[in-house]
């Protein structure tokens, strides 16, 4: 389904910032370089020019000293200088050349007013030597003054700094052009870099956005996307004032039926492959405007833009069909199937949480009654809502050990002598009180905590047998295990460890296999039973006759006991045909060397009849109801 939920990631502001940043940096660097280069050149040129001027001045001064020493009077020096051609053709840069004595002054070059410089020299007190740089009439000049040691004459030369200015102009010109070209390159580089960085940023951002909104395993949209979608597309649209019609839709909660069995038996890698295959099938089933989301491990959610059951049901049938078809993974075939709960918008809820909750309840109903799909119905939610709540509390209950065991005696017929007990789990719910297995055992099997739950039961049962052993009562106790447990490779070592820990002989523990699921391979069950038998644990098939695979179990598994289901016993007295079935079952079991136990004996007549038919062990309310361990202790003493 395409929506406008995909984040808009063309981050122009980032590109603009990168370009502006790069250009600013280029400009700043250019300015710094130009200033530094200009100042460096200026200092260098000035230094060179000052040195050259000093040399020239010294040469003139030594020449004048030599001429002066040849004359007796200063006037002679002046006349000699006036006649010398060197002084007549002075360099144009010498803007002032002034020779002075106490009485005379000879100005050979006077193109610049030097009063300011002379005042400086006067203020310095006519030193032997002085020099400096100043600006006169917008012209940079150097000056140097020197008086001879005999104090017969002094020389002041002022030279303009023309070559320095020319050099600086030239350098400034070159630097400006270079700066322009550098800036041009910087612009290009900034644009290119900004484009590359932005592209990478966008790619990473898109990757992150994809990961945030998609399930990494199946590639489907995830729960976050569903929440965003519902908030932006459904809830906001429905409150828009100009919206002519409220949007309608249906939320389908698809839960895979036997997915956890696959995980338990074959591991997560197989589970992942199975999910991928089913996700692909679901994608193919849906059209573009349907939204398919992986909601949790084995649950998918589909949003349909219609609440019309006549349009929804064909899609639901397709989904059930595609999930029901067998999936082949690594030469193994799996049939998981799905249960679908449907909640319509806005009739069953106007917010996502409510719709999800109601779809979950409907899904649970569909799973419970194995009807494939169910619409949410307001008049039937309470029980399912309670189941949903209980399912959420199960893991915590196992952690807090809220499950306890009660024991129902097994007696021999016809004397009613106690020969064993069946341990039955009860949930001591903090709010609901003592709950029977009918309320939670299916949730335990579906909720993925069957292994921890079973370990709790095994631990408690073995511990209780050891307590009774300590008081001198040797009584075998049977526990119920699901076929799911048998796929657990750590189960048998755990039972062995418990038996050793509590010093309980293995034959005092019986394992009853219930038939609540049939998909796990018989070979897996067979191996687990063989391991248990090797351990010395007794084995029995529970609820015999109700499941499709009962006879297969009887044929394939080497069990000690067969427990005939209470439904046969209950109807045995009223229906001759049922009596014949029970008779046949007992006969068959005997002929196969199995001990038969009848469940659900409620009347004396039933007990007599079963004894007549050859059943040697019975269990039911007629003899004793399930009771706590302390009551069981009393029962044992009374029975003896």
């Amino acid at each position, binding site marked *: 389904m395409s929506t406008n939920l995909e984040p808009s990631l063309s981050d122009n502001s980032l*590109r603009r910032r990168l370009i502006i940043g790069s250009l600013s940096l280029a400009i700043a660097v250019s300015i710094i370089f130009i200033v530094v280069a200009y100042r460096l050149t200026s200092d260098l040129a000035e230094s060179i020019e000052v040195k050259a001027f000093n040399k020239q001045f010294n040469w003139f001064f030594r020449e004048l000293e030599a001429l002066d020493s040849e004359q007796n009077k200063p006037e002679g020096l002046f006349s000699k200088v006036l006649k010398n051609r060197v002084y007549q053709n002075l360099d144009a840069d010498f803007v002032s050349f002034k020779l002075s004595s106490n009485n005379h002054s000879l100005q050979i070059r006077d193109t610049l007013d030097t009063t300011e410089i002379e005042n400086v020299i006067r203020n310095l007190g006519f030193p032997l030597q002085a020099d400096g740089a100043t600006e006169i009439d917008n012209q940079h000049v150097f000056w140097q003054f020197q008086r001879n040691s005999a104090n017969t004459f002094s020389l002041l030369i002022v030279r303009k700094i023309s070559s320095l200015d020319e050099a600086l102009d030239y350098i400034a*010109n*070159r630097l400006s*052009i270079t700066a322009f*070209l550098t800036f*041009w390159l910087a612009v290009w580089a900034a*644009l*290119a870099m900004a484009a590359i960085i*932005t592209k990478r940023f966008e790619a990473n951002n898109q990757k992150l956005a994809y990961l945030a909104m998609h399930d990494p395993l199946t590639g489907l949209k995830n729960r976050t996307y569903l929440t965003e979608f519902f908030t932006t597309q459904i809830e906001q649209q429905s409150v828009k004032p100009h919206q002519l019609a409220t949007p309608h839709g249906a939320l389908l909660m698809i839960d895979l039926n036997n997915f956890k069995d696959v995980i338990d038996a074959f591991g997560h890698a197989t589970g992942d492959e199975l999910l991928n295959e089913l996700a692909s099938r679901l994608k193919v089933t849906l059209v573009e405007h349907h939204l398919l989301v992986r909601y949790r491990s084995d649950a998918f959610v589909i949003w349909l833009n219609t609440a019309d059951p006549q349009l929804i049901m064909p899609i639901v049938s397709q989904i059930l069909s595609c999930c029901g078809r067998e999936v082949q993974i690594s030469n193994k075939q799996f049939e998981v199937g799905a249960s679908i709960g449907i909640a319509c918008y806005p009739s069953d809820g106007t917010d996502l949480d409510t719709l999800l909750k109601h779809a979950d309840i409907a899904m649970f109903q569909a799973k419970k009654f194995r009807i494939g799909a169910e619409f949410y119905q307001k008049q039937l939610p309470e029980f399912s809502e309670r189941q949903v709540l209980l399912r959420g509390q199960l893991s915590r209950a196992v952690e807090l050990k809220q499950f306890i065991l009660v024991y129902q005696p097994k007696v021999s017929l016809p004397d009613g002598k106690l020969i064993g007990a069946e341990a039955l789990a009860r949930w001591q719910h903090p709010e609901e009180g003592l709950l029977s297995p009918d309320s939670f055992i299916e949730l335990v099997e579906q909720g993925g905590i069957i292994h921890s739950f079973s370990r709790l039961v095994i631990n408690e049962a073995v511990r209780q047998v050891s307590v009774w052993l300590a008081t001198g009562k040797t009584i075998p106790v049977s526990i119920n295990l699901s076929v799911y447990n048998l796929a657990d490779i750590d189960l048998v070592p755990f039972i062995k460890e418990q038996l050793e820990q509590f010093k309980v002989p293995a034959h005092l523990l019986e394992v009853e296999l219930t038939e609540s699921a049939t998909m796990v391979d018989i070979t897996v069950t067979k191996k687990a039973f063989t391991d248990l038998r090797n351990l010395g644990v007794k084995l029995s098939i529970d609820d015999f006759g109700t499941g499709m695979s009962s006879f297969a179990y009887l044929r394939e598994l080497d069990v000690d006991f067969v427990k005939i289901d209470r439904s046969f016993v209950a109807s045995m007295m009223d229906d001759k045909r049922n009596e014949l079935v029970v008779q046949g079952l007992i006969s068959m079991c005997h002929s196969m060397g199995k001990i038969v136990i009848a469940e659900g004996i409620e009347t004396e007549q039933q007990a007599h009849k079963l004894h007549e038919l050859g059943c040697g062990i019975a269990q039911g309310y007629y003899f004793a109801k399930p009771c706590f361990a302390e009551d069981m202790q009393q029962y044992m003493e009374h029975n003896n």
Partner: protein
Amino acid sequence: MSLINKNLCLADRVIRGILSVALIVFAIFWAEQIGDVLLQSLILVFAVLNLISFAIGWCPVYRLANISTFKR
């Protein structure tokens, strides 16, 4: 469909055209002012590239940076 999608608007092209001509004239007739053959060559390259952009209305740097001033 043309091979090159224009990405320069008229104003952008005119500015580039004027700048190109000015730089070419400057580089050729004021070579002494520039005083360096390398700089002179770079100015000419810059000017010619801009002149090409002016002529075809497409700037490769704009393309790289995914920028366009051209209004369709």
